[in-house]
């Protein structure tokens, strides 16, 4: 099993969610985060006091999937979240050691 963490632009969330549904992903977790990479921030000015705001709002999506699905899911997210401009985000693939469904106690792939 793998845990995929994707950082995407917030306005792309709906597109990515639809794309994941289309390939059979049945659950995901979303968090609002902020960060920066190569995309530049902006400047704010309050009565002469100038601040450079480096952090940009982003959305983090986490999905737990079977090893067999990794390629499909990565492709789905990439296509849905891509705008071609700097700041589109990244996907990280982590090894998932175990997964448990709380209600039934199922483990492994049955829990996904």
């Amino acid at each position: 099993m793998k845990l995929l963490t994707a950082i995407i632009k917030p306005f792309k969330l709906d597109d990515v969610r639809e794309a994941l549904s289309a390939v059979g992903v049945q659950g995901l977790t979303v968090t609002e985060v902020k960060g920066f990479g190569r995309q530049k921030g902006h400047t704010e000015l309050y009565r002469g006091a100038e601040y450079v705001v480096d952090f940009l709002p982003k959305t983090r999506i986490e999905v737990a999937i079977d090893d067999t699905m990794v390629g499909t899911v990565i492709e789905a997210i990439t296509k849905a979240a891509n705008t071609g401009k700097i700041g589109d985000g990244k996907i990280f693939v982590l090894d998932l050691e175990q997964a448990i469904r709380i209600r039934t106690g199922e483990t492994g792939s049955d829990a996904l």
Partner: protein
Amino acid sequence: MNKLSKYTTAVLTGLPALVWPAAAAAQENGISSGDTAWMLTATALVLFMTLPGLAFFYGGLVRTKNVLSVLMQCFVIACMVSVLWVVYAYSLTFGPGGPFIGGLSKAFMNGVTEEGLWGTIPETVFSTFQLTFAIITPALIVGAFAERMKFSSMLLFTALWLTLVYAPIAHWVWAEDGWLFKRGLLDFAGGTVVHTTCGVAALCCALVMGRRSGFPDSPMPPHNMAITVAGACMLWVGWFGFNAGSAVAADGNAGMAMLATHTSAAAGALAWMVAEWIKYGKPSVLGVATGTIAGLATITPASGFVGPGGALVIGILAGVLCFAVTNYMKRALKVDDSLDVFPVHGIGGMLGTFLSGVFASASLGVFSGQGYAEGMTMTSQLGVQIIGIFAVAVYTAFVTWLILKLVDVLLGLRVNVEDETMGLDTSQHNERGYSF
């Protein structure tokens, strides 16, 4: 006509009515219900300027962790000043005395009865109206020491400042036996009494107490601009009570004061907006709101003496000058007058007091005002204005500095660095502003 010469006339004619009730029926110049109704309203408007106008204006400008401390300071200052006013400060300010201070004959509002008049309005109304000015003046200083002053020290400082700075100066300028009043200083609603005093005191506090931890390198942007703008709007509306109410009458003087006030507010906002647009490339809502306050502060001393044309010029000059000084102090001098009290109120008040001497002239065409008092010219009036500004500024600076030193010795002025970093809401009040 200066409101206090109206008072003199009215008191002399009103006094018999107090002593001989039958005479009241025969009085033509007794209580005016029109004047009284307006002044009751104006009093509420000016209290509204502090609660919650100024509280919101300042509250939104500080960081989230300090929002309650600002609201608390404004609220408690209102309460404490109110009590001290009733007990002795009204008497010290407006009670009969000498050229530099009143006496204690009206302590505990002795002699201020239900029927007693101050001119054409009840003295109860006049004293409460003046109380709202005594409240907002120390509340304005909060902006200078925001986010770092110990609460107990702030209480002691305010009590001493009200007694040793505000009361004497208000007496000099607005009491019949005050020395600046007798010299004919033009200060309709508080360019010296309110704005110069609080502005100079603010600068003293900023210099004596030092910068906030992390200033100017750490970003400290306003946490809630929306509420700051709401507060600024409340201040604009309330200011009609502040300036037009200083006519102490519902008449043409009040009407012209309102028109001048409003004109200067709008002009100040636009002037700041243009200056900021040119210098920084984008107009900001904080700039527009601050420019309005600058325009309002600057017209305050002039409002009852100038015309709308003069008010327009005053507003524009206010917007530009206060903008320049704000930026200079923040960027060049790096003085941490956290909410820019000196550049907006101090500079505005001093500029407005000076310009009152110019635009009171009846010989300026469309920029004319209501005319000088008998025997005065523009030169002689400007001389008085300058004496007034200088005396008020120097006295305020010196006594404020003394009070700060005293409070420092007794209680300390600042919270420690750990409490300052944690935020005053938690460290001073055990509370949190928002629980989203």
